[in-house]
C-alpha cells in the first residue's frame, strides 16, 4: 500500500537580504498536509524572516513559495492563520473588539469555537489589549487564529509568555488541528515543545537550513557517548578520525562524542582512556539541535574553566 503525500507548503530557494546581512539563504523545505513542522534556530537564525517572506509581509529577494501549489494571494488568508512572535494586536482595542474584527474579516470565523478557546485560556475580553499581560496577549492572538478553523497555521513562538498549563494547551490545540488535516509551521525556543508536537523539523543557522528531517528518524540516527574523567578530558588517539564519529566536544572533565551507529565501538575506544563514568545515550532533539548549530557556546563555556 502506498500513502499519497500532499505537499501543502513548498519553499524553494528562499533568500532574503537586509542590506549586507543575509537573513535567509537559499532555504528549501516541503511541509505535508496534516503535519506539524517545527522551525528551530538560535536568535537571528532567520526564522521570523522566513515566516514573513512566506506570508508576503516582507519581499523575498529570490525563491518560490507555494501553498497547495499556488503562489500567495490575499484570498488565501481565508485559510491561513498567523500568530507573530511579537504582539501585533491593537492596544486600544479590547479582546471583544478583536473577535468582532476577526468575525467581520473571515467567513470561516466560528463564534462557538472562539468562546471555547476563551474559556480555555480564561482572560477578560472586555480589557483592552494594552491592559493584558504578554501571556494573555499571546492567548488572544491564538484564540483569533484557531477560531477561523485555518487549513494552514503559521505560529512564531506560539507559547511565548504563556504559563506551563497554557503552553500545554497550545501544543494540544496544534496536535488536534493537525489531526483534523491542518498543516502547521511553527517555531519555538523550547525544544521540548517542538520535540513533543512536531513530526518534522528544520534547524536554521545563520539563515540556512543546516538540518531537515523527520524527528524520529533524526533521533534514531545518532547516539551520544558521554564520559567524565578525573582531570581534563584527554585526547584519545583515533577518536576524531573514526568514521562513525560525527563530532567530539570537550568541556573540562566532560567528553561527549556524537556517533552515527550504535556507539559500542566508540564507547570501547573511550573506555580505554579509563573514564570515571561512561554512558551511551539516545539523542534528543536538543542534542541534535546543538550539534547542528555547532554549539557555539561550548568554547565560551570552556573558558569558564568548568572542569577546574
Amino acid at each position, binding site marked *: 500500500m502506498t500513502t499519497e503525500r500532499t505537499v501543502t507548503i513548498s519553499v524553494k530557494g528562499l533568500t532574503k537580504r537586509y542590506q549586507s546581512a543575509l537573513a535567509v539563504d537559499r532555504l528549501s523545505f516541503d511541509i505535508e498536509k496534516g503535519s506539524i513542522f517545527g522551525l528551530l534556530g538560535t536568535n537571528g537564525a532567520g526564522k521570523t524572516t522566513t515566516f*514573513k517572506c512566506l506570508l508576503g*509581509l*516582507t519581499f523575498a529577494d529570490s525563491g518560490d513559495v507555494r501553498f497547495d501549489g499556488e503562489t500567495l494571494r490575499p484570498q488565501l488568508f481565508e485559510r491561513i492563520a498567523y500568530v*507573530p512572535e*511579537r504582539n*501585533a494586536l*491593537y492596544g486600544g482595542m479590547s479582546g471583544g473588539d478583536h473577535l468582532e474584527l476577526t468575525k467581520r474579516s473571515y467567513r470561516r470565523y466560528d463564534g462557538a469555537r472562539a468562546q471555547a478557546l476563551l474559556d480555555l485560556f480564561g482572560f477578560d475580553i472586555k480589557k483592552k489589549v494594552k491592559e493584558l499581560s504578554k501571556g494573555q496577549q499571546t492567548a488572544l492572538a491564538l484564540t483569533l487564529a484557531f477560531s477561523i478553523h485555518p487549513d494552514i497555521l503559521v505560529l512564531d513562538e506560539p507559547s511565548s509568555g504563556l504559563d506551563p498549563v497554557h503552553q500545554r494547551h497550545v501544543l494540544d490545540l496544534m496536535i488536534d488541528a493537525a489531526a483534523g488535516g491542518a498543516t502547521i509551521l511553527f517555531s519555538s525556543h523550547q525544544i521540548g515543545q517542538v520535540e513533543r508536537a512536531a513530526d518534522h523539523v528544520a534547524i536554521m543557522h545563520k539563515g540556512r537550513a543546516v538540518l531537515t528531517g523527520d524527528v524520529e528518524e533524526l533521533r534514531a540516527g545518532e547516539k551520544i557517548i558521554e564520559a567524565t574523567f578525573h582531570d581534563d578530558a584527554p585526547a584519545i588517539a583515533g577518536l576524531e578520525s573514526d568514521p562513525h564519529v560525527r563530532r567530539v566536544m570537550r568541556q573540562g572533565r566532560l567528553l561527549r562524542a556524537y556517533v552515527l551507529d550504535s556507539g559500542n565501538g566508540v564507547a570501547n575506544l573511550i573506555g580505554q582512556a579509563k573514564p570515571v563514568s561512561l554512558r551511551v545515550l539516545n539523542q534528543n532533539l536538543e542534542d541534535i539541535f546543538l550539534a547542528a548549530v555547532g554549539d557555539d557556546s561550548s568554547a565560551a563555556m570552556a573558558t569558564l574553566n568548568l572542569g577546574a
Partner: protein
Amino acid sequence: MYYKEFLRMRNAVKWLAISLAVMLVAHAALHLFVAGMSSNSGGATNFVGIFGTAALVIGGIMATVFGSTLAYENDGHLEVAWTKPHSRTEYATTAMLVNAAGIMFCVLMSFFAFVLTWLTPGMHEQVTWNLSPSTANELLGFALFPLAWYAVIVALSARLRGGALVQSLIWPVALVLLALHQIPFTPVWHSLFAALNIVNPLSYVSLMGGRDVNTRSFAAVALALFALGGWAFATIQWRRLEA
C-alpha cells in the same frame, strides 16, 4: 476589515458630539445670563461661512487625527492588517474611505451645531440665509479641504511608524508658509513662498471665499487633486512597505 477604522471614527464622533453639546449649552447659558451677548445684528446669515468654518476647523482637526491611519498600522500592526483575506490596496482604500466618511460626518455635525448656536432664540433677529446660485459650489470647495488635508497627511506619513511627527508639524508649517506668502518680501522671496504654497492645501482655502467663479473652481479642482493624489501616493507607498 473596516471595523477598526469604524471604531476609531465612532470614538471620535462621540467626543466631538460631547464637545459640541457642551459648546451649545455653554452658549445658551451665556446668552440667558449675560445680556450683553445679544448682538441683534438682524443681518443675513453667512451659510457658506459657517460651513467653511466647520470644514476648516473641525474637518481639519479630524483629518489631522485620522491622517495617521496607515502610519499607525505600520507601528507594529502590519502582521494583523496584512494577513486578512484582502489585498493591501483594498485594505488601505477601505480604511481611507471610512475615515473620509467619518470626517465629513464630523463636518456636517459641527455645521449643524454651529447653526443651532447661531439660531439660539433672541440672539439674532430676522435671520435670513444668504444663498446664491454658487453656494453649492462654494460648499463643495470647503468640503474638499478636509479630504485634501487628510490625504496629504496620509501620504506624508504612510511610510512612517506612527504619524505623530507629520501630525504635529503640518499645521505650523502650512500656516507659516501661508503667512510668509502674505508678507511683502523682495520678488525673489515672494516667488519662492508662492511656489512653496502651491503644495499647501491651506493656501487654496482662502481662494474658496473669493467672488470670482473661476478662482473658486480652480481652488476646488486643486483641493480635489490633492485628495486624489494624496490617496494614490499613500496607497502606492503602503503596497511597497515591508513588515
